[in-house]
């Protein structure tokens, strides 16, 4: 079986020569189970890619290996042209990267989790300023200002001194988005960020992501079960199955006219559920 999809469309306005994120032949196994199977994927700068598919198809793993939360067994991942887990040595051949090099490349990527993962013992403000102060070396005042701007952008400027436990799930997730953005990543990963939320709270989080897409030239990869949102927001939709991109295309192509049987079956099952 090939990994090539029927549709090979990438938005025409994105440069093909320098992808912001590139997976080349990436394989990830858990024992006998192959979660990513020689995966190839290129994402252009500023492109919004939605990743859909059945559970266990490897979509979350794709984000987790890009965030270096998991190691890969084969292949190369590049962010802005730099390999994530390897670095060129003096002769130009790739060797496993030092921790320092990895932290440098990892700094270009930010991630928002399904379960928010806010620091429960810190206020909203501290959650957002902690990493900029400790990692980027920002002065306290600078970090506070950055936090205030970002929290205003997600509509939580009045919750600065609250603790996560005092916020609703939707508000917590918006803080988590602000916290990731405070590190000024070039690539943002959203891993089922509305799955833990009550339906009426999803909208406020999706609105923030929508605004983020409009206002920034941020590259975004999102694993989602919100087909409506994927259709409206994404430049490209990738359907994952058995560790490979089974089919991909523009939202209209993939949702409107899926070519492959597995995709059609998945989409109609999802539609029935709603």
């Amino acid at each position, binding site marked *: 079986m090939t990994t090539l999809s029927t549709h090979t469309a990438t938005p025409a306005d994105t440069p093909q020569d320098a992808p912001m994120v590139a997976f080349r032949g990436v394989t990830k196994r858990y024992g006998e189970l192959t979660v990513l199977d020689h995966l190839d994927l290129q994402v252009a700068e500023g492109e919004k890619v939605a990743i859909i598919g059945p559970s266990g198809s490897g979509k979350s793993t794709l984000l987790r290996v890009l*965030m*270096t*939360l998991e190691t890969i067994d084969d292949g190369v991942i590049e962010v802005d042209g730099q390999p994530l887990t390897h670095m060129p040595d003096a002769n130009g051949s790739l060797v496993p990267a030092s921790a320092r090099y990895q*932290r440098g490349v*990892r*700094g270009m*990527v*930010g*991630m928002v*989790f399904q*379960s*928010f*993962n*806010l*620091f*429960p*013992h*810190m*206020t909203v403000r501290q959650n957002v300023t*902690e*990493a900029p102060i*400790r*990692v980027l070396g920002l002065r306290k005042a600078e970090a506070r200002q950055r936090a205030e701007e970002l929290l205003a952008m997600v509509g939580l400027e009045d919750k600065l001194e609250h*603790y*996560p*436990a*005092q*916020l*609703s*799930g939707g508000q917590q997730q918006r803080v988590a988005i602000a*916290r*990731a953005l405070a*590190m000024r990543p070039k690539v943002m990963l959203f891993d089922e960020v509305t799955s833990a939320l009550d339906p009426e709270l999803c909208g406020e989080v999706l609105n923030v992501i929508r605004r983020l897409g409009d206002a920034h030239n941020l590259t975004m990869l999102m694993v989602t079960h919100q087909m409506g949102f994927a259709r409206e927001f994404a430049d490209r939709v990738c359907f994952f199955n058995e560790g490979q991109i089974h089919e991909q295309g523009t939202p209209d192509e993939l949702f409107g006219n899926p070519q492959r049987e597995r995709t059609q079956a998945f989409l109609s099952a999802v539609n029935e559920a709603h």
Partner: protein
Amino acid sequence: MIELLPLLLQGTWITIKVTLLGSLVAIACALLAALGRISPIAPLRWLAIVYIEVFRGSSLLVQLFWLYFVLPMPPFNIQLSAFAVAVIGLGLNIGAYGAEVLRGAIRAVPRGQAEACHALNLSPMTRFGRIILPQALLAAIPPGTNLLIELLKNTSLVSLITLSDLAFRARQLNQATLMTLEIFGLALLIYFVLAQLINLGMRLLERRLARGRMRGGLS
């Protein structure tokens, strides 16, 4: 009965000093051994395991005798005062239990916290010191309170290495005055009050660490 108090209070002061300093040693040992126990460096792990098992797995009294009577002999030739032995011995012993408590509490911090730290590029030091440990300490407070109270009560063994603590003074006064009920009644009360002070201190610490948490409230 008033004439009993000065000697009992002298003993109490020794008991308090041994408890406070022993607690500090115990907390330091627990933290170091818990860190060693979860370290990726194998020799550190082994060292921590040996420490924990030796001090948990043998009698505290024999440990105190070792430190006090055996260490001054060749080939060790380490002479410690009875007070130092009491503080170090109790600290090492309770620290071994504390290490396991703390290790469990560190393990119990949800994995998502470490993942968030990783995604934010926090250094391992910052991750542990600023994010994981404060949450683990909160979870370790109830069993930690037990251990510190245990340490207080175990101080009564130090009279066997010649320290004149509260229990020693009580026995001494009893032999001299035969006011058995009064003396041991007072000793009991003093231990109880000290234990309650430890309890209170730990509750205050818990309140401090739990700031902002609403357990069972909004989530």
